[in-house]
């Protein structure tokens, strides 16, 4: 199954339906777009990455990637409208941790983002969050959702697998 087919299957899953067998553990959350939740999300990410079997170092960068994505969902996606929800889902299997962060905004086109490593951008105060996510996660896709809203899917493989 390709990644995008897998995503399609995930989306069609009804709330309350059992998770696909391939995932051993699944945890998801959703909250109003208030930056106050960021630290809680960070704590949760730390617990889940530990559960998945990552060491402190790997965990730090995964949690940073989640933090950046959730901050973007709250600020850029939902424009800090507390009535709009941010969703975060963790799926653990033997080989990897799959994380999705979704918001109710209109998304953005990744190809139009300025490269933060261009010498003209080095001193810009912003524009490094998406870059961090790409740097620290193994596989990252940004996509609009068919039912509306926007989602980033990121995967981190456990080191002991090849």
């Amino acid at each position: 199954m390709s990644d995008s087919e897998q995503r399609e299957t995930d989306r069609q899953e009804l709330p309350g339906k059992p998770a696909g067998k391939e995932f051993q553990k699944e945890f998801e959350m959703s909250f109003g777009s208030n930056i106050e939740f960021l630290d809680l999300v960070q704590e949760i990410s730390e617990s889940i990455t530990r559960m998945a079997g990552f060491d402190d170092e790997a965990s730090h960068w995964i949690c940073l990637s989640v933090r950046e994505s959730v901050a973007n969902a709250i600020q850029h996606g939902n424009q800090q409208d507390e009535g709009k929800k941010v969703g975060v889902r963790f799926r653990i299997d033997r080989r990897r941790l799959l994380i999705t962060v979704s918001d109710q905004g209109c998304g953005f086109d990744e190809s139009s983002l300025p490269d933060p490593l261009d010498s003209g951008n080095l001193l810009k105060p912003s524009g490094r969050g998406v870059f961090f996510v790409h740097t620290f996660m193994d596989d990252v896709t940004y996509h609009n959702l068919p039912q509306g809203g926007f989602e980033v899917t990121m995967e981190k493989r456990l080191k002991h697998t090849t």
Partner: protein
Amino acid sequence: MSIDTRNVHGVTILDIQGRITIGEESALIRNTIRGLVKSGQKNLLMNLADVRTVDSTGIGELVSSYSHVADQGGALKLLHLTKRTRELLAITKLLTVFDTFEDESQAVASFA
């Protein structure tokens, strides 16, 4: 997060404890740096030994502070980067921008 400032041979050293991340933490750095510059203290050395976490907003705040101090004719340098902070500055190519030091007296001397 807390910032203690001390003066060593005309250089203001900011000992930062905690994290430099989106929200209050970044705002505190911004306001402290701006306050110092306003009061004429323009040779600034940030000691990041006890900074556990930095996110992209935190990196952005370091960059803004750097530019602001330079614009006012001063200099902002960094001391005692943790492995993780160094890694973030390396991948963002900001190690080419910031002067960084592992030794406090060498750092202070560099402002002379």
